[in-house]
């Protein structure tokens, strides 16, 4: 397959089992379009996913893919990319997967800056386990495990990423198809780790953070004269917890992917049939 792949080539023949109206449909369509628009094909794309409704995304797309255990998709993506930097690597999951069980890996993936795109379908709830609060849920959010509110302040993913030294920090909304696709395209083209926190409403368990809520509250950075390469401006917007933004909040133009800094030159999948020719030198070191 060549670079003329159409976005439908990234679709698998498996029908999604997501609830009708789930925000994840839009998130996935944007990912497929962005992959095709940036010249990728299913045969050189690798998608790693976590666990959750969101994590099923790899199942519904067509490419090389791994659907792993809860919260660990980022390390898998790291290994995939380092061992074959020629691949386009995308990692996807939910807010619970990425910012709760996988929070430790998130921070380290951000600072390690491997060239991959991380799309988090943020619905501010646990969907697959049927409606418990998630790390991005508001403090007064009532769920089966928080009947009187969560009594904890939410995680701010963009701020976490900025504090960890993120080189590409963006936010999108799955139902704004065009902007969402554009933002993911920019993330793919960025050299380094790209976070795209995508608001992807859960229509079944979250009646607070709805499509209407995001539509009404999102401020588009295109209309705000925002310069994502201006660190201070980016920081101000990211730390402004009273507003939520859509667009690329921060991008470090000088970013260089970790795999390049390690000097990895190509895929590691070719090895000799026997010991390397200089193998006895390895032994001789022990004289």
């Amino acid at each position, binding site marked *: *397959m060549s670079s003329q792949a159409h976005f439908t080539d990234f679709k*698998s*023949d*498996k029908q999604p089992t997501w609830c009708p109206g789930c925000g994840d449909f839009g998130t996935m369509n944007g990912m497929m379009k962005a992959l095709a628009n940036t010249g990728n094909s*299913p*045969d*050189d*794309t*690798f998608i*790693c996913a976590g666990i959750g409704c969101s994590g099923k995304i*790899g*199942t519904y797309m*067509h*490419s*090389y*893919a*791994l*659907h*792993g*255990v809860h919260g*660990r998709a*980022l*390390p*898998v*993506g*790291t*290994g*995939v*990319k*380092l*061992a*074959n930097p*020629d*691949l386009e690597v995308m990692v996807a999951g939910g807010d619970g997967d990425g910012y709760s069980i996988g929070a*430790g*890996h998130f921070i*380290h993936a951000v600072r390690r800056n491997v060239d991959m795109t991380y799309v988090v379908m943020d619905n501010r709830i646990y969907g697959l386990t049927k409606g418990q609060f998630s790390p991005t849920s508001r403090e007064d959010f009532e769920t089966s495990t928080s009947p009187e509110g969560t009594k904890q302040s939410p995680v701010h993913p963009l701020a976490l990423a900025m504090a960890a030294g993120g080189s590409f920090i963006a936010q999108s909304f799955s139902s704004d198809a065009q902007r969402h696709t554009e933002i993911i395209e920019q993330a793919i083209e960025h050299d380094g780790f790209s976070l795209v926190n995508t608001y992807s409403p859960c229509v079944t368990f979250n009646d607070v953070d709805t499509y209407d809520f995001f539509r009404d509250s999102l401020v588009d950075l295109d209309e705000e004269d925002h310069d994502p390469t201006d660190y201070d401006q980016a920081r101000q917007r990211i730390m402004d917890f009273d507003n939520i933004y859509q667009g690329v909040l921060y991008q470090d133009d000088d970013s260089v992917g970790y795999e390049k800094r*390690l*000097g*990895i*030159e*190509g*895929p*590691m*999948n070719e*090895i*000799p*049939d*026997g*010991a*390397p020719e200089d*193998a*006895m030198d*390895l*032994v*001789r070191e*022990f*004289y």
Partner: protein
Amino acid sequence: MPEDLNWAVGGEAGDGIDSTGKIFAQALSRAGRHVFTSKDFASRIRGGYTAYKIRTSVDELNSVVDRLDILVALTQRTIDENLDELHEDSVVIYDGERSWDAEVPDEQIPLDVPLKSLAEDAGGAIMQNVVALGAACEVAGFPIEHLDSALEKRFGEKGQKLVDNNQEAARKGRDYVQENYDHDFGYSLETTDNDYVLLNGDEAIGMGALVGGCRFYAGYPITPATNVMEYLTGRIDEYGGTVVQAEDELSAINMALGAARSGARAMTATSGPGIDLMTETFGLIATTETPLVIADVMRSGPSTGMPTKQEQGDLNMTLYGGHGEIPRFVLAPTTIAECFHKTIEAFNLAEKYQTPVYVVSDLAMAVTEQTFSPEEFDMDEVEIDRGKVVDEDNIDQYLDEQDRFQPHYDAGDGISPRAFPGTVEGAHMTTGLEHDELGRRTEDTDERVRQVDKRNRKVETAQNEEDWSPREFGNEDAENLVLTWGSNEGAIREAMQKLDIDVRFISVPYMFPRPDLTEAVESAETTVVVECNATGQFADVVERDTLTRVERINKYNGIRFNADELVDRITETFAAESEAKV
């Protein structure tokens, strides 16, 4: 067995004990003598007693003894800790000018050498340990030129001046003993022209990985496995690979999994607590049929246990760890050289059968340096088998009627084709969920049974196609059978030479699949299983496999077996058994 000399240097952690010991070990090895080392160390960086012990002989050595002939004591505690091992001719080298009041028991030969001031004369107090090495050469009747060569290796890169100073310091130690003691210590260490290399178990695993084509290593530091990562760091890059120090073991094993799916030979190494964390992903590796090598360098558990002490307590964990049922291979090298060979074998098994493979080693092996002739690492014998990898030319036969690649295609032997990402038409998905041949999630009852059977069939196939034989020693017809696994082999072999009874000894390097021991156990009068744990995990396995009761010799105080104690315990066990049967 001809004369062996036992030497040790001990002091506080941070006193450079390790490098002092290593220099002497290298000097002996470069002089064509066999060396077998062991370490006493505590889990702290500064302070606390630590010692490096060397046993040396012109004959091959495979274990330690409880005897010290020459002890370099930098602290009183070094003497106190080793009293049991000192004998009436033991020489204790110490510095009487130092602040501690050395009390060398009357039975031993005290050798007061002003280590520190002699070192200062040679250019710096820091070289006091090297002064002691020079003194030790004189006592041992060991030509100081071999020490020169080891000092050259150690300091050469840092400049000739440093080498000269150290060689001078060594001479000051030697001369001081020559001039001030006319005692004949009675040692004269023979040297030979043999070429030896000196390495430990972790280094052997690392070297095996490199030679075996490993290109990706991710790990998280933990005693006593860290050395594998340190060995590979820097070296693996020369072959186009990389080492990643991950944020934890969960990440390490998932990175290795990702790299393996990219088509690299990948591995991670850790010790018990890290295996606990990795277990979550272990099942995923098996279910997605990803080749991966995991080295478990065991230490004393449970929990953080005794991080710097020996134990073989993780056998059950590696055999049964993980929820659900997980096909796997478990290899347990029985010598340091086998750490090298089994690691290469592990990569071949992992890729041929697309399963996780444990290489189980232990602290005693990891921190022990031993001499080998380089031919032990025969590079011409190394074969790399990557299993069923498909490419553009043969992928067609694995596509279904809709031209979809089937990563879990069931070819009858349980082994599927593998398509590295980038292979045209090979795009596919793998998941930890139960899946069909296409890798798609399923809860279909028939498909579930089919896939479980397919994965388990790989073990059957491997059982038939690979050689899982144990290592055999002693008299095959003896009525007393000794069984062991892992690092105890050397001590048992030495004990056999000293035993008054005839034994058959089987050392098992494959824990799963493992050799069928039924015939051996049935034909023996009495079987005893020797292992470094409290409950006899391997003994349990043997009983279950052979449906026969076995005797057990266990040790779990944190110290490896030595030959002398095994002579006693093996003799007692067989004697008690034959009495009971009368």
